[in-house]
């Protein structure tokens, strides 16, 4: 029963939602609508599950003095502070329906003063590491690497106004060599062709995996090996 019931639910819901795409009439239309809402309700519970899991993993690390356990203290304290301040709407309009990020609220203050600068800083560091990696790793060792480098140069210059200034003087018959045009061509043809191929491959893989899940062939989500 522990295995059969989830399999039956997966089978029925899976086929019902596939049918809802092709059959716009009730009951499939109503099912599509309702299941989307149920999905969102479950997604909200996923937040609780995620938070609980974070506390469990880091709590365990702190208790057992695992590797870098002091950083886990920072994680847990930060998480609990934001949760308490947001849940009880400290400093803001009280009550369940009050705006958690109202002006003057502690949540907004912590978000603006701590989260925003930290996230901006972490992302900004990427620029420096990309430059350093470019210097050390981008080598024209092979023909393919050389083509990649040339394409990278064209895109780097083409994605700035300089690309237009450098080749604006080209006569009409040679406009295809105008850097912005070359940049657009690379993005619209070879890059897009590769992206499309990857997306179709991924989509076919998703269809295959979804069918295996719906038909009960793939049972890893139940916590055991598929039979």
């Amino acid at each position, binding site marked *: 029963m522990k295995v059969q019931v989830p399999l039956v639910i997966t089978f029925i819901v899976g086929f019902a939602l596939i049918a809802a795409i092709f059959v716009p009439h009730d009951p499939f*239309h109503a099912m*599509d*609508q309702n299941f*989307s*809402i149920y*999905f*969102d309700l479950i*997604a*909200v519970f*996923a*937040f609780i599950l995620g938070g609980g899991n974070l506390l469990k993993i880091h709590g365990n690390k702190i208790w057992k003095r695992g590797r870098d356990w002091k950083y886990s203290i920072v994680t847990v304290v930060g998480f609990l502070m934001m949760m308490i301040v947001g849940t009880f709407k400290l400093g803001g309009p009280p009550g369940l*329906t*009050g*705006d958690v*990020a109202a002006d003057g609220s502690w949540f*907004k203050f912590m*978000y*603006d003063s701590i*989260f*925003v600068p930290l*996230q*901006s800083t*972490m*992302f900004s560091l990427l*620029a*420096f590491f*990309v*430059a*350093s990696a*470019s*210097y*050390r790793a*981008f*080598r*024209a*060792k092979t023909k393919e690497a050389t083509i990649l*480098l040339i394409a*990278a*140069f064209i895109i*780097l*210059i083409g*994605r*700035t*106004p*300089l690309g*237009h*200034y450098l080749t604006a003087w080209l006569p009409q018959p040679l406009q295809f060599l105008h850097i*912005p045009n070359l940049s*657009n061509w690379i*993005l*619209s043809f070879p*890059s*897009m062709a590769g*992206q*499309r191929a990857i*997306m179709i491959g991924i989509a076919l893989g998703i269809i295959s995996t979804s069918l295996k899940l719906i038909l009960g062939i793939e049972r890893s989500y139940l916590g055991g090996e598929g039979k």
Partner: protein
Amino acid sequence: MAKGKRDIVDILKAMDRRVIFLLIALSVIIPLVFHLVFSVRTSPIVQAIFDKMESLPPGSKVLVSFDYGPSTAPENQPMAEAIARHALQRDLKLYFMAVWATGPPQTELLIADVINADFPKKAYGKDWINLGFKAGNQGLINAILLDLKSMYTTDVHGAPINSFEMMKDVQNLTDMALIVCIGSGFPGVREWVQFAGDPGDIPVAGGVTAVEAPLLYPYYPRQLLGLLGGLQGAAEYEAALVKAYPQFKGRANSEQAVQLMGPQTVAHLVIIAFVIVGNVAFFAERRRLARAKKA
């Protein structure tokens, strides 16, 4: 070369990465300090969004989804503000929402920088409304495609959704004339195309980081009517906006992406220079080793 003596190749090979970091920092700071600004031309993929907005009659409904956070705000925020500025100038009705939890603060920034600053006469609930964030990722988009009010029973401030004039004739996403998703990951533009634009036959435009833009080209132009790619895309839209509406020229935040193209251009050139120098050092070292082997 005599043993123990280092030549230029050895110096380049062993260059401390802090030198690279310093040069990148200077390449951004110096153009900012000296206000290095280039004129920007609008590309067809950005012009398509601009033309669509221009073609919408006043009163048309435009949904803007803030699916990004502070980390990508330097690229995404100018896009969102340019789109909002354009929509309000054309008397379109703006519906703000977010599928990312970090979206609402970016919406608040836009409200302060664009609506309160440039369009103080636009009324909340009549010309624009902020629906806020809801969890659910693509499930949310799927749900509001069919019934928006089942998910959004109130606005972001907790007021009942039907108390707003501009929500009375909105049942679901198909009532929108255009959906603009400003995003930087999952869920983002791709999910809006897959779960709203394509099934609902609703025009979708996107604004994404430069890194994500190439991944969305397969959807252009049929499923995605246009795409703002990175800071360049934002600058192109601002340039088109200022060209069509010169009253925006010279205002504090209406050309922020155009202003930032100077530092981006110089930084790109510095990176290109690093790659060239790195390759010169690599090939010089290879030739040196080949000569040493022959000898």
